[in-house]
């Protein structure tokens, strides 16, 4: 079965610094997709970034980038120049191509210190 693990329940970062959130996954499939979602205090879930497993190039969206290590089954999120608005819960998720269901990790709460 597909699993997603986030081993850091909580992390802190100083404003303007860089932080990396970890995510590991386990799948026997070769065609799958990985995502990071952000959940601010408003409770709204927001898609931050996505990565197709067949792409070797790491995805980037402005200050957000991933380090995708397929052999190690690792998918970490790097936030550069952290801002107060980045404070949120961050969820890692995966889905196998051709299936219906996304599998979520347990989340990492990120605090941004002024």
């Amino acid at each position: 079965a597909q699993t997603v693990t986030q081993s850091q329940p909580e992390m802190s970062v100083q404003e303007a610094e860089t932080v990396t959130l970890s995510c590991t996954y386990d799948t026997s499939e070769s065609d799958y997709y990985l995502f990071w979602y952000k959940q601010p205090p408003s409770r709204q879930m927001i898609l931050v970034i996505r990565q197709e497993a067949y792409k070797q190039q790491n995805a980037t969206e402005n200050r957000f980038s991933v380090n995708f290590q397929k052999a190690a089954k690792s998918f970490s999120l790097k936030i550069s120049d952290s801002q107060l608005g980045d404070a949120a819960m961050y969820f890692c998720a995966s889905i196998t191509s051709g299936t219906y269901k996304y599998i979520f990790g347990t989340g990492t709460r990120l605090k941004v210190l002024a």
Partner: protein
Amino acid sequence: DAGITQSPRHKVTETGTPVTLRCHQTENHRYMYWYRQDPGHGLRLIHYSYGVKDTDKGEVSDGYSVSRSKTEDFLLTLESATSSQTSVYFCAIRGGPANYGYTFGSGTRLTVV
């Protein structure tokens, strides 16, 4: 989020009563999902739908039922609410291939007393 709404946003109910949560979308998307979010567990899938009247169970479906009689509406019913069903419930939709990701509703906070 635009195109998907959940109602109610908050609800307090008594143990043993039935409760129905509604998810409404205007995107004409095929796939709809109900998740519950609990501290330490992340989001866990309750039920999902892949078309009108086509539904299937997720990993935590006991005590819940769903119905989808129209493309735009996906209802989640707690048949007899228990305190363990106190949670935040999210509806999500997906319109395209798996790599599209979800669009989420704003969630319903349900408290069972």
